[in-house]
């Protein structure tokens, strides 16, 4: 609105309301690949069989949760800072904060793998998926979801994928990296990969499980900054490496994985090291179960090749060096135009609004469109238009 002159004196400024989302996102097709759903526990119990429905009156948690509110000035673990989506209508409302028209909802909110009794995770997974089908998907075909599974019992996980994986609004199978359980790359997890491939599902690796008092690194981090900032990334990197080095993608060459909340600028260092160390002692690989089974001694490609072929990375948290030249080098080394999928992590304290896609000078219009949605549509079979 034009300013109004006040005679010959100063112009009049206008008091306005702030935009809910950056107006520059208007006109873009945006898929937010990481927003979190937290149904009420009592509503989830309705989808459980007896005796769980009656007995599990509260979420059977994981022991003592790490509570960082002393450091963050936000309640709890900061997971409901910008709201809480319980239903499909809530999810649609949340997208007004992110600018997205489509989204992939993540069940990581409940730290589902972390219940003491691991068979309960299978019960929760089924209840959650049925809840999503009945209470979230009907709100819009633009709401997609990750299918909750029990990664600690891979046979149960595969059975769950086969039970509900036919539903086209599920686009991936959800696993967590937190270091508490076996690496996702071990052969024990093959049933998850097989069932996911049968249903055109991506496999997600999302930060999780570490909300317990200890991260497994060094008998526990001492600060929230180390835990959230670095431990997650280190564990993520190790889980990605486990999939590559233990031959997941030689056995399942069509398998695709999306990494969320574990970072990605580590790709150059990680691929350099993996390639070099692998070439220093390639026979290390030949003793992995999948290589024994296939009668192969080596990987079919260099470790770095698998990163570009089999992984994509959700953007939150997007952090770039202040020197634009350095930021652009990093961007190019990680082939970010093609490797990144837009995400916000709504409603967590680590929420990433889409501003950075406009404020980073070297991001081209073409790259912006790819990251906002085109990369995701090319990556997820069930997001293809």
């Amino acid at each position: 609105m034009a300013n109004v002159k006040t005679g010959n004196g100063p112009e009049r400024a206008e008091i306005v309301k702030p935009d809910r989302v950056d107006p520059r996102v208007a006109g873009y097709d945006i898929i937010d690949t990481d927003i979190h759903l937290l149904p009420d526990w009592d509503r989830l119990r309705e989808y459980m069989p007896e005796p769980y429905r009656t007995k599990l009156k509260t979420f059977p948690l994981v022991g003592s949760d790490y509570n960082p509110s002393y450091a963050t000035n936000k309640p709890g673990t900061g997971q409901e800072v910008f709201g809480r989506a319980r239903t499909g209508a809530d999810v649609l409302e949340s997208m007004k904060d992110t600018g997205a028209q489509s989204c992939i909802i993540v069940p990581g909110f409940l730290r589902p793998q972390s219940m003491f009794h691991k068979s309960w995770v299978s019960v929760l997974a089924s209840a959650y998926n049925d809840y999503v089908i009945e209470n979230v998907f009907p709100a819009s075909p633009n709401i997609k979801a990750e299918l909750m599974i029990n990664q600690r019992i891979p046979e149960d996980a595969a059975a769950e994928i086969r039970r509900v994986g036919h539903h086209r609004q599920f686009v991936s199978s959800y696993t967590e990296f937190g270091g508490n359980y076996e690496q996702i790359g071990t052969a024990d997890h093959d049933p998850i990969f097989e069932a996911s491939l049968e249903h055109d599902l991506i496999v997600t690796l999302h930060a999780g499980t570490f909300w317990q008092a200890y991260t497994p690194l060094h008998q526990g981090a001492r600060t929230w900054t180390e835990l959230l900032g670095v431990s997650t990334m280190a564990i993520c990197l190790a889980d990605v490496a486990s999939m590559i080095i233990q031959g997941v993608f030689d056995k399942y060459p069509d398998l695709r994985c999306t990494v969320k909340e574990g970072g990605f600028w580590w790709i150059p260092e990680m691929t350099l090291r993996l390639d070099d160390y692998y070439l220093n002692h390639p026979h290390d690989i030949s003793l992995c179960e999948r290589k024994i089974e296939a009668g192969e001694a080596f990987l079919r490609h260099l470790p770095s090749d698998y990163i570009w072929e089999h992984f994509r990375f959700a953007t939150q948290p997007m952090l770039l060096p202040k020197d634009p030249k350095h930021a652009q080098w990093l961007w190019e080394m990680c082939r970010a135009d093609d490797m990144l999928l837009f995400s916000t992590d709504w409603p967590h304290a680590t929420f990433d609004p889409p501003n950075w896609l406009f404020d980073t000078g070297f991001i081209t219009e073409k790259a912006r469109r790819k990251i906002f949605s085109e990369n995701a549509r090319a990556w997820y079979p069930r997001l293809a238009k």
Partner: protein
Amino acid sequence: MSKDYVVGRVEDIPDRGSALVRAGRQLIAVFRDGTTFYAIHNTCPHKGGHMCQGEFEPDNRMVRCPIHLWGWDLARGELETDPRQTVRTYPVKVVDGQVVLSA
């Protein structure tokens, strides 16, 4: 070169509160603590949060961005924990009961 803008009367901005102001092409968050006013660029340089929706701490002369709670000194524009990082602030004065911003 900056020029003056009349934001409104003192009481148009809530005491110990804030208002978002469009001055020319700029969006500026104006904060009021009694008869003292501060003005700061509305966009947090960290992740683009609206400063006008941040937590105003008049006693510390600070606003915390609503997204990740980064604390900015409203007079100097410096980040609480790393003063090398700054955001633009603007002079504000009261003239005949009117809040006047130079931007």
